[in-house]
């Protein structure tokens, strides 16, 4: 059952990205280009998603278990760290270069665009590099 709800969530998420225009890099770049011909549409995506999301998270926080009886795992961190800010800044540079963030890139990959496959391959590469660096740090700390 959990697999079905997760599959449905992913599917609906993907459809939402397509309907909203968020899956189209040209539209994303038009939103980020505030100095040029600015297309404010994607602010409406955020508004719509957050309006529904805030109700959902309010309900989720009140529950001990999910509707399927799972533990509810919501990040508890409160501290704004340099690592968070630097990582987000680097992510933004990549986002602004190609107009893809992770979700839309996966949708475009599913649609069969070769450059989206290239993007996702490189993105996984970046994530692997993160894992290697972090695991090496961990090993050094334990040694």
């Amino acid at each position, binding site marked *: 059952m959990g697999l079905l709800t997760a599959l449905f969530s992913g599917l*609906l998420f993907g459809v939402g990205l397509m309907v909203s225009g968020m899956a189209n890099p040209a539209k994303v770049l038009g939103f980020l280009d505030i100095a040029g011909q600015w297309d404010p549409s994607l602010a409406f995506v955020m508004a719509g998603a957050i309006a529904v999301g805030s109700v959902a998270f309010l309900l989720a926080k009140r529950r001990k278990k999910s509707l399927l009886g799972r533990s509810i795992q919501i990040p508890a961190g409160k501290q704004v760290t340099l690592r968070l800010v630097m990582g987000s800044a680097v992510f933004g540079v990549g986002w602004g270069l190609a107009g893809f963030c992770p979700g839309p890139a996966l949708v475009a990959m599913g649609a069969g665009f070769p450059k989206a496959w290239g993007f996702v391959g490189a993105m996984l590469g970046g994530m692997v590099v993160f894992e290697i660096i972090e695991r090496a740090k961990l090993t050094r700390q334990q040694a």
Partner: protein
Amino acid sequence: MSIDISNFTPGLSLTGGVMIGIAAAVLVLFNGRVAGISGILGGLMNLPQKDAGWRVAFLAGLVGAPVLASLLGNPIALDIGAGWAEVVAAGFLVGIGTRYGSGCTSGHGVCGISRGSMRSLVATATFMASGILTVFVTRHLFGG
């Protein structure tokens, strides 16, 4: 600044946004998990993968969405203006940046802000600012 009215799609964007919000609601209320795509993907690289199932199912839905749309006669139209070198560099930066930053547009921008997280608000403001700056530099300082 001028508003690009010809490409402005407030209705469709709001509708799509609501769908994304419902998707995130389903995942947190049924599975108890946050719909943050970089985190869902990155979590698959962390052994032991006792909770790999829901991650794979969610990602399959995401990647399958355009396939389904195509089968229903609505293939997605999108325009990737960046060249191959830019695409690969961008992918790498997005991969490593979202892992160090603990999230992306979905995890911080949608879910994090929805639950009132200060970390997510700061992260979102940061990647929006650096994205805007990057587009400014590539389009208006060096681009033509």
